[in-house]
């Protein structure tokens, strides 16, 4: 990156230390004699949302915001967030990305189709698009050298090899900003990050990252199951066990005080109602699974 100035985008998930990391980078740039502006947005990040921090340094900086295609480096503490930030990266510029995945619960919602909403960990495809990808499992590295909380410092160590800030400014900024007592762990994590060798390290770490569910592998049921009800046996509101048990809220007690299927399209065939009904009112006909 140019010694005259640059733009660094840091992104991740609430709780991963993105804001602290960007404070450390800002402090380092300042100690290296630059003007710095930094602006972050962490909507409701305490609750697992997206955090992004724009940082620009140079002789004199006007706007703190980085425009699309203008970041000289993107530092992502999470895989999906690294992909999301890609349009900000200047073509040809390096992407530093953590291979650790934080899957949002919303990616696991397609219960009938089984479609996994989280992008696959395809490092080779990313490297073809970006060129310079510096990927590592920062969480595993941080845990190995001291504390999993220092994963942000591992990535700062990787960043340090790309920016023109003297070593002592990094150390001073780490010491000044790391939470009390955590400096040794953060310094060790920083050193471990800086010692990684790219591109070899990217491939080694990507190979080691554990496989996770990808796509739907053609194993999802795809269609709802159907229920057969022997209504006269149902005790209605006096019981209501199946209504409370159904994970999909498919069942209700209707005006005749008997069980009724109100959301047939959502039944996943889990059979909880059949298993729990004390009066054998419900039978699940799972044509989907039987047809296999």
């Amino acid at each position: 990156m140019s010694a005259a100035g640059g733009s660094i985008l840091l992104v991740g998930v609430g709780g991963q230390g993105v804001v602290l990391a960007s404070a450390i980078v800002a402090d380092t740039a300042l100690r290296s004699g630059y003007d710095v502006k930094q602006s972050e947005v962490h909507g409701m990040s305490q609750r697992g949302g997206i955090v992004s921090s724009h940082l620009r340094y140079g002789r004199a900086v006007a706007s703190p915001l980085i425009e699309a295609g203008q970041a000289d480096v993107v530092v992502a503490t999470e895989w999906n967030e690294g992909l999301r930030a890609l349009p900000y990266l200047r073509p040809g510029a390096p992407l530093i990305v953590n291979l650790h995945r934080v899957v949002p619960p919303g990616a696991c919602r397609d219960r009938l189709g089984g479609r996994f909403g989280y992008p696959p960990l395809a490092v080779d495809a990313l490297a073809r698009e970006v060129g310079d990808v510096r990927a590592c499992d920062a969480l595993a590295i941080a845990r190995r050298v001291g504390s999993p909380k220092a994963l942000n410092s591992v990535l700062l160590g990787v960043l340090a090899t790309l920016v023109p800030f003297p070593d002592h400014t990094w150390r001073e900024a780490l010491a000044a900003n790391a939470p009390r007592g955590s400096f040794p762990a953060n310094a060790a994590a920083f050193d471990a990050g800086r010692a990684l060798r790219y591109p070899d390290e990217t491939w080694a770490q990507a190979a080691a990252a554990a496989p996770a569910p990808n796509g739907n592998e053609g194993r999802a049921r795809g269609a709802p199951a159907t229920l057969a009800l022997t209504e006269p046996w149902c005790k209605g509101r006096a019981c209501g066990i199946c209504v409370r048990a159904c994970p999909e809220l498919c069942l209700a007690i209707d005006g005749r005080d008997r069980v009724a299927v109100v959301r047939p399209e959502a039944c996943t065939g889990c059979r909880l109602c059949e298993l729990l009904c004390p009066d054998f009112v419900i039978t699940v006909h799972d044509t989907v699974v039987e047809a296999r």
Partner: protein
Amino acid sequence: MTLGAAMGGARALAAMKHVGLNVAADTFMTAAYTGARAGLVVVSADDPGMHSSQNEQDNRFFARFAGVPLLEPADSQEAYAFTLLAFELAERFDVPVLLRSTTRVSHARGVVHRAPAAGPPAPRFERAPEKFVMLPGYARDRHRALLERLAALEREAEASAQNRVELRDRRFGIVTSGIVYHYVREVMPEASVLKLGLSHPFPAGLVRRFAAEVERLVVVEELEPYLEDAIRAAGVPVEGKAYFSRTGELSPDLVARGLERAGWPAPAPRPRHAAPPTAGRPPVLCPGCPHVTPYLALRQMGAVVSGDIGCYTLAAMEPLRAMDTTVAMGSSIGMAIGLARSGGASGPVVATIGDSTFLHAGLPALADAVYNGTRVTVVILDNATTAMTGGQAHPAAGVTIRGDAAPTVDLRALCRALGVGWVKVVDPYDLAGIRLALAEAVAQPGVSVVITNRPCVEMPVKVRDHPFTVADGACIACQACMNLGCPSITWSSGWHEGRRKVQIDAVTCTGCTVCVQTCVPGAIVPAPGRSGKA
């Protein structure tokens, strides 16, 4: 509180988000009449783009509405300098000053050069009822005095160093304020600019002189056409919102595109990587959040839920989807009364409100519900903190904002004192207990209150118990546990009868046990080993 302090002669500053000023407006509007002894500054940050807010109102109108000076800092250095200036103006003109920030200015770091510290005046309260007691007779005089002060302030704004003309290329004259100034400088460094730092009272003369120097006058501002309307009212031809959105944040890119629409040659579009498919990541309730189970139960009961503002507003989203209305801090109970009185609700009407919000603005409506005998249930989600905004203590938390011991409001006794006949405190980690309590509560003929009693797991201290794991062989992939929306629970790579099995992330699981209670086959078991968690 700050007005009282300033009347007592101590410099005082009240900071709040934009919607906070709505609540403070009653006092604020009249404080413009009274003024104070020592400087009174109100700092209010707008949230264009609603990063974490329920609306994106433009608080600059409050300055015009109340008749107080308005300062708009553009960066960290100006935020500092303008705060000093605000106290100086407040004391010189005997009027509160509104310092209006935005999310981008407030959530920022930059280099700040400090000024030598000047000692504040010594506090001393002097009686002056004709100034401080706003009976109509006194207030009439004070309103006239305010208008005189505004005239003097207008002269101040015309000459202020914070309203700066930068003449460059004369084809375009840009009028702007706040952080947008930096965006304009970034994308159009050659344009002439009038940067307004003290933008109310409006320096119409200065704008007229600037307009005479340039061919076209264009206002670039976030949110409402506040400056644009003022310029037009001064009889100066101007353009602005024809090119820029009235909603959301601006950015250098959006400023460049707006100016392009206005006829300024745009720089060639820069190459960029295409956006790959990614997973959405809306905020979610934390693993072990005590707010989860009441909403799970309310949804199953088919209750009509009047929500409020706090972390628990997230219960309106998938998968809990158990909140029907949310409008403003403290509105839940009043709205529940209205919903119940309307006769249109399809199920029992339940208001849900956080402890902090209840103490802030819930009490009057609860007293009203009791007084008028409305049949509603109120769930007070007592997590002993103000979690959504960062874990500030409050009068029922037992500690001061600095962490010292403090007297504690007893919420149960408080509800009884307001006349609520049926109050029950329940453990939200006891799913069956929550279901029973709510079922009993909605069966009451009048007002009933259910109070949950588990602390927030994140603040002020992290609550961690031994984590759980899923015994893969026992999981039947019913995904009942996933209805909690706990972020520690995701799909594993296993399948059962065409459904995904689940796994629990031991690092983030807080061991709250709620998912265990939803698991019919008993597949959720304690993780092996002793808990390493603190």
